């Protein structure tokens, strides 16, 4: 098959968006199911093509395919921009992640969004969201990466704000867009800087310039930092992490997509895509590792105390994204992306599980749940698998990728390694806190909208969860003997990647397994067996608890103090006052000055000839005197 078909991977969901919004929504609004079917069909097509592309790339020498370009803008002697695709190992891995997760989410949404009046709008946005992410993954120059980057941001804005009639929702959507745009500013500045210094947007060319050393020094560092700023915004890394927990206001399948495969994955992907720029600047790559490592533990600490199941998952996503960044910074593309790959499946599964629980109980507050194991066996089983996987329990997917990150951190960033080890414990603890609070114990009645006894979700929702659960188990096997690393062009064979059981001959995996086990044990002790009282421990560490629970006061600092008081209330208000009273006041002042002058001078025009005669006389006298003295 010709390689141009790769375009279809991105175009199919785009067509689906166009068909739903231009045709189905206006003319067939009474048949809501159609929109979902079209989205699913288009994604099935994209998935098929992605698998084909994966096989082609695996077979191709150098693991990349050449697809012809299209011209976009040409200004002779100024600028030439082509629209092209890059199809290499990184691309195809991401294509698989995005299409698989998106497809599962869409199938699940058929059940979850059943009966929602905005059904068509939902699937139209979901199609566009997926298409934008696929475009982002495929684009071969930074300009188009930026284009799709912004489209991804727009779609998440639209989907987070899907239930826009609730004020909190509209605020959350706006926050997501603006906070990420703060990062985009850095990305755009980096693009300008790179273009100024190299005259190209082409990623391949930039790679070779960085590798040959033509692009180096502070320019390279600043460009890499700028790109990373974009990634920090999209991937919700510290200090731009505040938008992601609020983004929970959107429908849960949207969260699943955002947290697993699209929006937040975009940041990690971008760093991986431009990785040669980072790897040739020690400062840049260290920044990535430090921010990542810090975010991992920082977010995990907040996840420990949240009572909203989706918020726990949100902080867990931020924390896991931190791991990915740490993996990129300390180990390289293969290690960071491998965790992204595995994380996508179990995190999507966790969110779908949370949605399923919400479907049954009408709440996201874990304090109102409990005992759901009996009512929802499928949801429980799949959620448990995902929780074990994210905690890094052998031999599930999360174990394989997390261990590589820990190993590379131990080698290159010892301090961050210890933070990451603590995070392992925290992750296991908060995940099993969720499991025990939600599924263990007795049912506590659900939310206000709960109807009777909770029940298992329909099969259209359970089926995607089962598929994802299988992936959450097996996806890690890709790198058991280092094939994934080799495929991503990671030259050396990793010391740990030596087989299913071989890995257990090392001490590091045992250490992390013990820490994770301890985390689970603690959660069991506090929330299931009640050997320890959660309240008492909370009271014991009261200041710490408050600090975590109030999210280190970052929301207050940003929104109330910085934006509210300093910028909008202070500086901008000052400018507005200046505009009204200073600039415009000056203008009106000139006008009223002119009028006042006219009014004053008018008094001289009395119309009395005697007075005029008098002035003429004075004038003549003055002239005569002047002539006499100076003439």
């Amino acid at each position, binding site marked *: 098959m010709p390689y141009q078909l790769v375009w279809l991977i991105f175009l199919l969901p785009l067509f689906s968006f166009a068909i739903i919004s231009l045709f189905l929504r206006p003319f067939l609004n009474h048949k809501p199911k159609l929109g979902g079917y079209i989205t699913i069909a288009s994604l099935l097509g994209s998935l098929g093509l992605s698998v084909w592309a994966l096989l082609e790339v695996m077979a191709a020498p150098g693991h990349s395919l050449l697809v012809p370009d299209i*011209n*976009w*803008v*040409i*200004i*002779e*002697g*100024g*600028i030439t921009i082509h629209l092209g695709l890059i199809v290499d190992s990184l691309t195809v891995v991401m294509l698989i992640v995005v299409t698989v997760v998106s497809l599962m989410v869409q199938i699940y949404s058929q059940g979850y969004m059943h009966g929602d009046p905005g059904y068509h709008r939902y699937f139209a946005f979901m199609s566009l969201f997926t298409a934008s992410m696929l475009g982002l993954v495929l684009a071969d120059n930074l*300009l188009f990466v*930026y*284009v*799709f980057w*912004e*489209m991804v941001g*727009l779609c998440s*804005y639209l989907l987070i*704000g899907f239930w*826009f*009639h*609730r*004020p909190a*929702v*509209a*605020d959350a*959507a*706006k926050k997501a*867009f*603006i906070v990420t*745009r*703060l990062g*985009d*500013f850095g990305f*755009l*500045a980096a693009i*300008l*800087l790179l*273009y*100024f210094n190299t005259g190209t947007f082409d990623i391949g060319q930039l790679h070779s310039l960085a590798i040959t050393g033509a692009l180096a020094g502070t320019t390279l560092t600043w460009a890499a930092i700028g790109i990373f700023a974009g990634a920090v915004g999209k991937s919700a890394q510290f200090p731009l992490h505040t938008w992601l927990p609020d983004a929970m206001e959107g429908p849960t399948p949207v969260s699943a997509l955002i947290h697993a495969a699209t929006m937040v994955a975009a940041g990690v992907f971008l760093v991986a895509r431009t990785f040669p720029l980072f790897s040739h600047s020690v400062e840049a790559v260290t920044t990535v590792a430090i921010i990542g490592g810090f975010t991992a533990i920082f977010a995990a600490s907040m996840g420990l105390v949240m009572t909203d199941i989706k918020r726990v998952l949100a902080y867990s996503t931020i924390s896991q994204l931190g791991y990915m960044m740490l993996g990129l910074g300390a180990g390289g593309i293969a290690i960071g992306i491998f965790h992204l790959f595995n994380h996508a499946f179990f995190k999507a599964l966790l969110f779908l599980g949370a949605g399923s629980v919400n479907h049954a109980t009408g709440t996201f507050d874990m304090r109102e749940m409990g005992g759901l194991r009996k009512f929802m066996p499928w949801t429980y089983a799949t959620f448990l698998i995902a929780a074990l996987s994210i905690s890094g329990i052998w031999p599930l997917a999360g174990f394989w990728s997390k261990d590589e990150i820990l190993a590379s951190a131990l080698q290159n960033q010892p301090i961050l390694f210890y933070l990451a080890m603590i995070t392992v414990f925290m992750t296991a603890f908060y995940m099993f806190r969720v499991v025990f609070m939600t599924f263990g114990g007795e049912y506590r009645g659900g939310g206000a909208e709960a109807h009777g006894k909770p029940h298992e979700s329909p099969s259209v929702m359970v089926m995607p969860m089962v598929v994802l659960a299988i992936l959450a188990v097996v996806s890690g096997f890709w790198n058991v003997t280092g094939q994934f690393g080799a495929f991503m062009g990671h030259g050396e064979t990793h010391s740990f990647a030596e087989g299913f059981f071989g890995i257990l001959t090392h001490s590091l995996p045992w250490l992390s397994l013990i820490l994770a086990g301890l985390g689970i044990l603690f959660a069991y002790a506090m929330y299931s067996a009640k050997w320890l009282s959660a309240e008492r421990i909370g009271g014991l560490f009261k200041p710490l608890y408050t600090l975590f629970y109030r999210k280190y006061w970052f929301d207050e600092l940003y929104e109330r103090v910085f934006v509210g008081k300093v910028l*909008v209330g202070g*500086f*901008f*208000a000052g*400018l*507005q006052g200046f*505009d009204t009273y200073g*600039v*415009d006041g*000056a*203008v009106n002042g000139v*006008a009223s000055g002119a009028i006042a002058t006219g009014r004053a001078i008018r008094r001289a025009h009395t119309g009395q000839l005697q007075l005029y005669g008098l002035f003429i006389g004075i004038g003549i006298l003055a002239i005569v005197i002047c002539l006499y003295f100076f003439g």
Partner: protein
Amino acid sequence: MDFNYLTTIIFLPVVGAILIAFIPGLSGRLIKRLAALFTFVPLALSIYLFAIFDRSGSAIQFEEKFSWIPAINAHYHLGVDGLSLPLVILMALLGFLVVLISWKIDLRPREYFAWLLLLETSILGVFCSLDLLLFFLFWEIEVIPMYFLISIWGTGRKEYSAIKYVVYTLFGSAMMLAGILSLYFATGSLSMVDIAQGGLVMVQSVMPVTAIFFLLLIGFAVKLPVFPLHTWLPDAHTDAPTAVSVVLAGALLKMGGYGMIRLCVTIFPQVAQQYAPLLVAFAVVSVLYGAAVTLRQADLKRLIAYSSISHMGYVLLGIFALGQVSLVGASLQMFSHGIITGLLFAMAGLVMHNAGERDLRKLGGLVRQMPIIAVIFSVAGLGALGLPTTSGFAAEFLVFVGSFSSTVVSGIQVYTILGVLGIVITAGYILWMLQRVFYGPALEKFNGVKDADILERVYMFVFVAVIMLVGIYPAILTDVIKTGIMPIMGLLGG
């Protein structure tokens, strides 16, 4: 020269205005149809010109030249190049669309449409004139219809705003006239083409060249507007009737940017280079200051009006970065801003007309009552915040790339980066505005508020189509614009 296309395009609206004004007993419906006809034909002709425009050279095309006042060597001289043609199309397009936007005007429709058509003629004339006197004449005519349109059909402090607009504009034109006269006395010519080509070798003026440059520049800076000459704009835009706001923001501001490129940069390339750092700094101040003040506005129209100051700052940045790409970007930004802000004002007008409310603190939840307007307003807003696939992104991106890589101004990278910061603030106020108007719980007081009708949907569609077309395939315009910019680059010694 078979057919005088440009004359036809320019004067058809005024013919329509005369018919509307002087044929007695016309009904309101007939007046509107006449107005639509006499604006549609120029639009069709201008699109035809765009289609047959020769993109291979950089010559002025569709030229018409007749002796006008031989005593002072003034000619009736028209022509378009890659720089002016997009603006002619912009004005012709807006001219037709504002007639549709004004379809619900019932107060003294005869005068209203006569003035509106005269306004179109004068702006089209400015973009096509190649003779300084003719240029100035069209420039001045525009003030008269604008005064009446704002002061009679406006809202709020309309008389104040109208007078302010006139006085401000005349202040600018006085400077400009002095500049034009100095040029004439220095060179003995009124032809823009001759003066630009002859360079200023001919100058034997007592006026320093720099002074002439600044006289002209101030005239244009008032129109664009540039901080601190901008305060007429929020008042005029806010109090003007919807259609007039659309023309004001859409086409009239572009007279300033166009004049800067056509006269200041083309005739005084050296002076422009010398003072570029100063003007670039003003541009960045306009961008950030405009955006910051926009964020504080609580009136729907005033917010959009202030956003124009910020967006026209990008035009100034692109122009005085004096690079080929930046100038193309500035020209594209003029076109793009015309369409996007035109649509924003049209939608704001609809919201105000249908909901009877313009205070952002009192609006809310309108997406329930007016879903179509909400979607189109959002598209326009996203264009304004420079989202890719809208023309706003293509234009701003070219300005940024062009300015950042400009070699004329040292340290322009810092200015450009500061300018880029504007996109964050823009996202802030646009999304805040959309949220305030459309989202949140549906309010009872707006029950029964109507959505867009068929005619309104038609013009919305045209606006959105143009925004997306230019956004997805900007080459459709940049291929034309670059032919107009190339000779300027030659003059700049590039």
